[in-house]
């Protein structure tokens, strides 16, 4: 049920370790990779870990990373690609490894992000797989980002609600077949928003630098706040928002603006 009060929102970016953010001025000149998280944490209270998608998390690496961040700093960790995009018969072993690797983060883990590929449609086989995957990750706070429009149906939202799994709200270019931007809250504990940018041409290219090259105008964010963020905030206890338009440090710039806007 919608409330009058608006819940708190934590704003961050998808990834923090970008060399080009030094060139773009978000990090001071000469900043080395190991110092980045500490500096990042001065601006944002949360970060989405991108590298956990590229390689399986390792407990020792996670422990080292936590030691560089303030105690109250939070992390959202992407599920590794061998479980979402490139899964094979041994995917359950991969989930086991992931559970083990992510363990040191548990005190500061806001949510695990299950980002599914565009080819992952609402087929019987995929539904079984997702249900099985959610079962194997039981006990962790989970959020699911669909990229295929066929998942936009009430039965899916009801199932996620039953499981206390967050449906990720995405802002992306208007691409046919892409999951739409919805203000549906399936987990009253947490809503999760990802801003991918609106670079339509870049989205269709294979180049990550073009895909996420977009800077949200202040008006666009204000409008988004009215249209989506406020309804989401009325229906959840807490929210996390991540900017994925990392190219030329546009993500932290937009993130800072949104933070200030929400404080007003």
């Amino acid at each position, binding site marked *: 049920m919608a409330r009058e009060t608006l819940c708190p929102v934590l704003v961050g970016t998808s990834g923090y*370790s970008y060399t*080009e953010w*030094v060139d773009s001025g978000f990090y001071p000149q000469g900043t*080395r*990779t*190991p110092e980045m998280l500490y500096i990042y944490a001065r601006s944002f209270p949360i970060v989405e870990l991108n*590298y956990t998608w*590229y*390689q399986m998390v390792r407990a020792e690496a996670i422990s080292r990373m936590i030691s560089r961040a303030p105690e109250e700093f939070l992390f959202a960790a992407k599920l590794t690609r061998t479980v979402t995009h490139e899964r094979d018969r041994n995917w359950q072993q991969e989930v086991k490894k992931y559970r083990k690797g992510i363990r040191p983060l548990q005190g500061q883990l806001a949510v695990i992000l299950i980002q599914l590929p565009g080819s992952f449609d609402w087929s019987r086989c995929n539904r079984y797989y997702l249900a099985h995957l959610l079962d194997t990750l039981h006990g962790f706070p989970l959020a699911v980002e669909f990229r295929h429009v066929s998942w936009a149906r009430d039965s899916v939202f009801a199932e996620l609600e039953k499981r206390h799994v967050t449906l990720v709200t995405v802002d992306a270019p208007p691409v046919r077949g892409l999951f739409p931007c919805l203000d549906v809250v399936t987990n009253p504990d947490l809503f999760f928003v990802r801003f991918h940018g609106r670079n339509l041409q870049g989205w269709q290219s294979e180049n990550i*630098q073009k895909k996420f090259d977009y800077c949200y105008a202040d008006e666009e964010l204000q409008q988004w706040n009215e249209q989506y963020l406020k309804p989401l905030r009325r229906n959840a206890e807490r929210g996390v928002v991540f900017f994925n338009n990392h190219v030329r440090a546009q993500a932290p710039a937009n993130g800072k603006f949104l933070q200030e806007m929400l404080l007003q």
Partner: protein
Amino acid sequence: MDRAIIHLNVTDFAVAVERIGDSSLRNFPLIVASGAAGKSRTVVYDMSEEAYQDGVRKGMALQQASRYCRAARVIGPRPDLYRRAMAALVKRVVCYTPLVEQGEEDGHLFMDVTGTHRLFGPAPDIAWRLRKQLSADLGLDPVWSVASSKLVAKVASRMIRPFGEYIVGAGEEHIFLAPLPLSILPGLTAEELKILQDFNLHRIGQLAKLSRKQLLVPFRKRGSYLYEASRGRDHTAVRPAPEKDDCITMEHTFEEETANYAEVEAAVATLVHGVGRCLRRRNMLGGRLKLVLVHVDGKKSHRQVSWKRGSDNDFVLRDMAFGALDQVWGRRVRVRSCVLRCERILPRSPQQALFMLKSCQEEQQEKIITAMDQVCSRFGDGSIVLGTAI
């Protein structure tokens, strides 16, 4: 700025390439060995992961390897095929950076992608995309690692092979290396490893606790390398292969490894004729011949001989090649194959010499070569060879 080095490694490259060509080879452990199965001197050139798990190693006698892995299927090596596969791999990699350092047909390569993030994004994303592309285009599935130096990237690849990926964050090199065994550190010789074991040092972290001075005593000049390497410091640049001039390469693999000079000489003479014929067909002259002997222990010896004017005459080229063979013939290790490479290839001048002063012998040689070329063009390469090639 921290460097971003990607190491791509197609595990068991020869096996991977053979299995692309013949998918039925995927159903068995596979051993690539020079020479036919059953020959006593045949050694393992490469082996599949299953054979490796059974104890088969490179350079091992095939008879012993076959005992370790009885289910293995044995095939002969095809270096030319591996060379082409490597070239196809490099062709895709150079789209991301010109700084690519490659091994010799072994599926290893380093890429320096420092500063390319504005074009292609972060290094792990480049590595992941490349792996996907190589898998789709060539059927090769390399392991990849990303680190701030070649040394650390190589160690990371060794950790994960035969499948997977590893990203070592900049500034974390020494922490990453510390718990690993010393044997995984590249560039360490067996003698150095033995000395370190005598000092009861088994982990890289233990070595990293020693000072430069302490290492100087037992290792002299190498102490400095050990000091830096144990801390994950490696400033060596990724060196792209020099621009390759036009060249002609011919190779002969002995059915059974040999230490017989006459046998190698005969093989070289055959290669010379192949090179000469190729030059004449293209109307070119070769200015330098490089001879490489590949020994059974995997080591290579090579020498080169140049001739300023260049030639396409088999007799002249043969003298050059034999000169190189005399110089290179020194190691008392059997030879597995020999490679003859003709470099400095120049077009033959269309202008005739003003005074034709050919000796009688030269005229005779020309007639013989022309006749041999005619026979070869009718009955195929190798249908007639010089007497020294027998």
